[in-house]
């Protein structure tokens, strides 16, 4: 009895050791003769849920492309999942979709720096392209990765453009910064510093905001006391609204300035109860009210395909804009040699591509597609936005 047990365990071990030498298969390609599989994660729920519109926007964009005939005869099959802005969920979801047949050819956009970082290593290791992360972080391009193409202009660059505009065009001297104490806010702050150093100026005061803070009285009091002419905001929409409301109650009315994160003017006007007037902000994408032919086409697609309750706002359009270069790259990939490496080569050939965002260019070793933004301002009613400057890049 004991001998038999011993024999069995030895046999088991032997078999297992043999099996240990099995090689690991590569991830599936995600392409068939008639389909290309593209996927995106997004915060459909959780604290960042307003940005969930990006992933849904990409879905409508792809439906529009498919209705026009797809990419050289192949239709795009789009997969979207909710990661709640939680990196653990992002990575799990990416793996699940990537490894289940038929796999995913490439990943589009995807909101969040932390979620993106969780997915980045996995995607890069497996040679899966990723275009247009919906987060302007230096992590995507330092160092540049073969398969990662960033589109969103860096907060760092944006800040420089904004400061330059305020000082040179508006003649402002006393600038204050209200920033979120996370990567987003700090990147913006660094950009402000760089430009201020170049102009040999200093900010009057810099006030950080904690992530969960709902009471900004002390913050606004500090700003008011500093006597700043303009307050540059690198915060999320809720904090901006609370800041403006608190400032209104304190009778403090500086020139409010914001990064592109708050460029959804109708939303901001709506949730601030009408306070979002005459606010200057940068945009990385054409205004939804623009009358360009491309915007009209996208509006028609929105009317046709978007879910009930969806809004034709900046985040939704970002789902189009971040993915436009990807579609261009897919179109340039040779139909009969549709591999990931060929897609990468096609992406690198994109120069001065213009969709509804700024000019986008890639190249060998060049992975930051867009660096230009333009400055705009809401008017007295807060409902209309007027463009104040042309597309500008920091250098």
């Amino acid at each position, binding site marked *: 009895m004991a001998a038999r047990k011993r024999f069995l365990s030895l046999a088991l071990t032997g078999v297992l050791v043999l099996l240990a030498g099995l090689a690991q298969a590569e991830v599936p390609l995600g392409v068939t003769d008639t389909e290309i599989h593209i996927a995106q994660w997004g915060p459909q729920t959780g604290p960042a849920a307003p940005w969930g519109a990006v992933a849904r926007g990409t879905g409508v964009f792809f439906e529009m492309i498919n209705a026009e005939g797809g990419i050289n005869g192949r239709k795009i099959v789009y997969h979207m999942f909710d990661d709640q802005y939680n990196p653990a969920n992002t990575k799990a979801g990416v793996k699940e979709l990537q490894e289940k047949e038929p796999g995913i050819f490439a990943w589009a956009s995807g909101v969040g720096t932390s979620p993106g970082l969780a997915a980045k290593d996995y995607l890069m290791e497996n040679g899966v392209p990723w275009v247009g992360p919906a987060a302007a972080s230096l992590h995507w391009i330092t160092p540049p990765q073969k398969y990662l193409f960033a589109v969103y202009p860096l907060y760092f660059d944006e800040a420089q453009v904004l400061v330059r505009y305020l000082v040179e065009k508006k003649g402002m001297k006393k600038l204050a910064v209200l920033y979120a104490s996370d990567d987003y806010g700090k990147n913006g702050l660094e950009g402000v510093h760089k430009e201020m150093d170049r102009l040999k100026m200093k900010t009057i005061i810099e006030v950080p905001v904690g992530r969960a803070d709902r009471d900004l009285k*002390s913050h606004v009091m500090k700003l008011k006391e500093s006597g700043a002419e303009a307050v540059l905001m690198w915060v999320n929409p809720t904090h901006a609204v609370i800041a403006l409301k608190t400032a209104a109650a304190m009778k403090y009315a500086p020139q409010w300035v914001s990064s592109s994160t708050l460029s959804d003017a109708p939303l901001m006007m709506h949730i601030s109860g009408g306070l979002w007037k005459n606010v200057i902000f940068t945009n990385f994408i054409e205004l939804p009210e623009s009358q360009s032919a491309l915007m009209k086409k996208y509006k028609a697609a929105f009317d046709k395909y978007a879910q009930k309750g969806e809004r034709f706002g900046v985040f939704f359009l970002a789902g189009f804009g971040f993915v436009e270069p990807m579609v261009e790259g897919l179109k340039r990939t040779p139909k009969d040699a549709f591999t990931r490496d060929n897609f990468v080569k096609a992406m690198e050939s994109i120069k001065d591509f213009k969709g509804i965002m700024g000019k986008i260019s890639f190249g060998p070793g060049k992975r930051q597609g867009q660096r230009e933004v333009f400055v705009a301002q809401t008017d007295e009613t807060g409902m209309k936005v007027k463009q104040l400057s042309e597309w500008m890049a920091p250098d």
Partner: protein
Amino acid sequence: MDSLLGLIQVFVGGFTVGSAYSLIALAMVIIYKTSEVLNFAQGDMAMAATFFAFSLLAVLGLPFYAALPAALLFAVLIGLAAEFLFLRRAKEPNLLGLIIITLGLEMIIFGLASWKWGADPKDLPFPVSPWDTIQIGGLIISYLELLTVATAAVVAAGLFLFFRYSKLGVAMKATQLNRNVARLMGIRTRRILLSAWGLSAGIGALAGLLIAPGGTVDPYMMWDPMMKGFASAVLGGMTSLPGAALGGCIMGVVENLFGFYVSTEFKSVVPFAIIVIVLCLKPSGLLARHYIRKV
């Protein structure tokens, strides 16, 4: 700005924010006084009621004098349902079990509210404007802040009188002291518990409605205030209503003083630091009698 005036302004600002925290603390203390449960669902019950008010006001366009009682009623119903459907049914009502139930409730309410109203932040139309102000000397106070302080004071005073002098209030105290003896004395403890939860939810909803106009209405709106209300209750004493009111005001003032004079970045650490200090020095809180356990 002259610095004495600045100090007073910060103080006043902290006091008004603290009044909102007091309301939440009062709501939590009511529940703790009657059922010895930490109600983690407090914040989200208030959030759901605020969203309900938003729907009535912004979507259906009802006037405020109709929407307010409706929202309060909604909150009371949620509180009653929570007690009747869930807490009462717990087979083993030990502390851990009850905490798990309130946490589970919190998740359910959060999920439902978030699903129904979506994640985009919204603005609550409120009859008292958050940015119309009166000026006293150099001090600027908004109407909303005044309303918040007034409401908190009225509610605190009302509750204090209620618990001390009214029949229902005394019955509630008796239920907490010893539930079985209270039943023997003829008090309908089940109804008492129901009323406590309903009352608490209603007060929480008031807090939500007062906090919302100064910010946005979104699913996470009450998480931060709830933590602070919670810390205020700990500070003032979980079994003491005046303690809760006082704790809220102290919390608001200390937090804002810290934020203005020391650092805004670490402002959120203040409530937890206060909790730690209180628990180390006087765990039962400022105004509550020391908890003595009978063997």
